[in-house]
């Protein structure tokens, strides 16, 4: 099990909390809530060790387009990068709902 942390700049404040997904085989849970400062903080808890570079690629790509100031906790149970992207997009969509 590994814990990985990232920070990203953000420009837009966010008011809601969103929870999506499940810590099930090949899936992940995303908890998204407003961050206390004007930055985005990501904590990844993953059951699969050694994929730090892949996580960075996936999150860099997502936060190139998403500018909300949020704290995100990801609890991962071996999701593929595609599934991670879908869950992040689903959480972002939940903000608009």
């Amino acid at each position: 099990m590994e814990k990985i942390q990232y920070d990203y700049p953000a420009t837009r404040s966010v008011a809601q909390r969103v929870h999506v997904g499940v810590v099930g085989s090949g899936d992940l849970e995303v908890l998204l809530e407003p961050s206390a400062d004007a930055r985005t903080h990501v904590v990844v808890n993953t059951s699969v060790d050694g994929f730090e570079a892949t996580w960075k690629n996936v999150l860099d790509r997502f936060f190139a387009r998403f500018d909300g100031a949020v704290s995100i906790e990801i609890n991962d149970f071996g999701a593929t990068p595609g599934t991670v992207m879908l869950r992040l997009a689903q959480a972002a969509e939940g903000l608009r709902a």
Partner: protein
Amino acid sequence: MNTDAAAQAGYRRFLERRSFIEMNARERVRAVLDPGTYREMLGPFDRIKSPWLPLQGIVAQADDGVVLARGTLQAKPALIAAIESAYQGGSMGEVSGAKIAGALELALEDCEQGRLIFPVLLFETGGVRLQEANLGLAAIAEIHAAIIALRRYVPVVGVIAGMVGCFGGMSLAAALCTHLIVTPQARLGMNGPEVIEQEAGIEELDAADRGLIWSLIGGERRYAEGFADDLLEDDADAIAAAIRKAVSADPASAAKPRSMQVERYIEMLRKLGPTP
């Protein structure tokens, strides 16, 4: 109606049906409660999660796999507890078990003071979480005690929809419910087929033989044996309606709880003629 039209109608009904099995625990609770009344307690953002799984290298889920919500069922105050089967097989750990037991105990306090709360349990569980062993078992025992105490005041309604089913100590919790609803996809038993195969050998039971497994412990079988009160198709609206009906049942006309019908089950065992 000719056969084609009948097939068409059946097909349409199937498409229009909202599958309960395909819903996650949170969606199931929302599907059961009166619209707009869902209020979750100890939700994922409270982060009351297992302290034991990370010590064993397993990622913990923020709600420990149990969704607790208050709301209403036809305007009656209700407490729904749903187990998320996709997380650790819906297993009962210290926290997930305590969430259910604690919520039932609070509902009991309200009932004792004349404020009736109607509890509904949406089972989908392999039983105790082996990584948390005795702590999970202790919580399950508390759930049993709370169900027995509560059913003196209100019907305690259980649902096993599938596809995990309900096993181990939680199968006893299901058996203690006043009213148990199953689908044909449900399974109810003490030891799961994989456990039996592993312990007794594949000659005793082939866990991959789905037809055999469901013929032994499947929803239709359990309903026919009298271990469940309703056998329903996998239809969220039908299940929600059956829960409402069970909750509204007149307590005076309720049958003796299954767990007190000792003679009935001894007679059933006698007919089966098990050899020690």
